[in-house]
C-alpha cells in the first residue's frame, strides 16, 4: 500500500464529507422558518463542504500549480461567504422580510429605539428653535407664521425617525 492509494482514499472520504455538508445546507434551507435561521444553516456547511471538495481535488491532482489554484478557490469562498451572508441578512432586516418576534435576543431593536429617541429629542429641539425664531421675527414685525414653521419641523423629524433601521 503506497501513499497514492492512501491519498485517493482520503480524497474519497473528503469528497463524501463535502457533498454531505452541501446536502445538509440544503436541508437546513428548507427546515428552518425564517431568513436569518436559514442563512445560519446555509452559510457555514456550504463553505466547509466546498473546502472538503477542494481538499479532495488537491489530493487527487497532486501537482503544484493546480493545487495553488484550488487554495485560491477555497480562500475566495472563505472570504466571500461571510460578506454575502452579512449583506443578505442586512437586506432582510432593512426590507422587513423577517420575523422579529422569532428572535430570542434582538439587540438591534434596542439600538434602533435609542437612535429614534435621540432623533426625536433632536427634532424637538430643532422645532422649538424654529418656533422661537419665528416668534422673534413676528415680534420684530415680520409676516411669517410661527405655527407653520413649527409644524413643518415636526413633520420632517417624524419622517427622519421612521427612516432609520
Amino acid at each position, binding site marked *: 500500500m503506497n501513499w497514492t492509494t492512501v491519498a485517493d482514499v482520503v480524497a474519497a472520504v473528503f*469528497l463524501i464529507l*463535502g457533498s454531505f455538508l*452541501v446536502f445538509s445546507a440544503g436541508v437546513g*434551507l428548507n427546515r428552518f422558518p425564517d*431568513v436569518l435561521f*436559514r442563512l445560519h444553516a*446555509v452559510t457555514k456547511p456550504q463553505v466547509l463542504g466546498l473546502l472538503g471538495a477542494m481538499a479532495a481535488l488537491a489530493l487527487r491532482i497532486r501537482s503544484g500549480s*493546480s493545487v495553488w489554484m484550488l487554495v485560491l478557490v477555497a480562500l475566495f469562498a472563505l472570504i466571500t461567504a461571510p460578506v454575502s*451572508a452579512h449583506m443578505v441578512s442586512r437586506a432582510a432586516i432593512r426590507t422587513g422580510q423577517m420575523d422579529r418576534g422569532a428572535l430570542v435576543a434582538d439587540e438591534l431593536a434596542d439600538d434602533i429605539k435609542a437612535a429614534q429617541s435621540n432623533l426625536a429629542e433632536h427634532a424637538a429641539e430643532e422645532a422649538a428653535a424654529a418656533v422661537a425664531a419665528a416668534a422673534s421675527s413676528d415680534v420684530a414685525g415680520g409676516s411669517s407664521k410661527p405655527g407653520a414653521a413649527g409644524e413643518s419641523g415636526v413633520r420632517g423629524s417624524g419622517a427622519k425617525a421612521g427612516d432609520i433601521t
Partner: protein
Amino acid sequence: MTAVVWICGVLLSAGAVLSVYRIWAGPGMVDRAAALDLLTATLIAGIAVEAAVARRTDTIPIMLAVALLGFLGSITISRFAAREPESERRILTPAEARIADELRRAKAERDSEEGEE
C-alpha cells in the same frame, strides 16, 4: 471510486433540488438570494467531484469564475432588495388573484366614499 461518485452525485443533486425548491417557494427575495448562494456552491462542488474523478485540472478556472459570479449575484440582490408588500412576494394562483383584486376594489371604493364625505 464509482461508489463514491454515486454517493456524491446523489447528495449534491438532493442539495441542488432543495435549494431550487427554496428559490421557487421564496417567500422573500432574500430567501432566494441565500438559496442561490447555496446553488452556486453546489455547482462548484459538483465540478470538483467530476474533476477529482477524471483527474483533470482545466475546470479549476471555471470553479473560480462560478464562485466569483455567485458572490456578486447575492451581493447585488441584497444591495438592491426593495421593501415589498407581503401579498406580492410570490405568484398568486388565479383564485387568490381574484380575491386580492376584489379586496383592492372594495378598499378603493371605501376610500373614495370617505373622500366624498
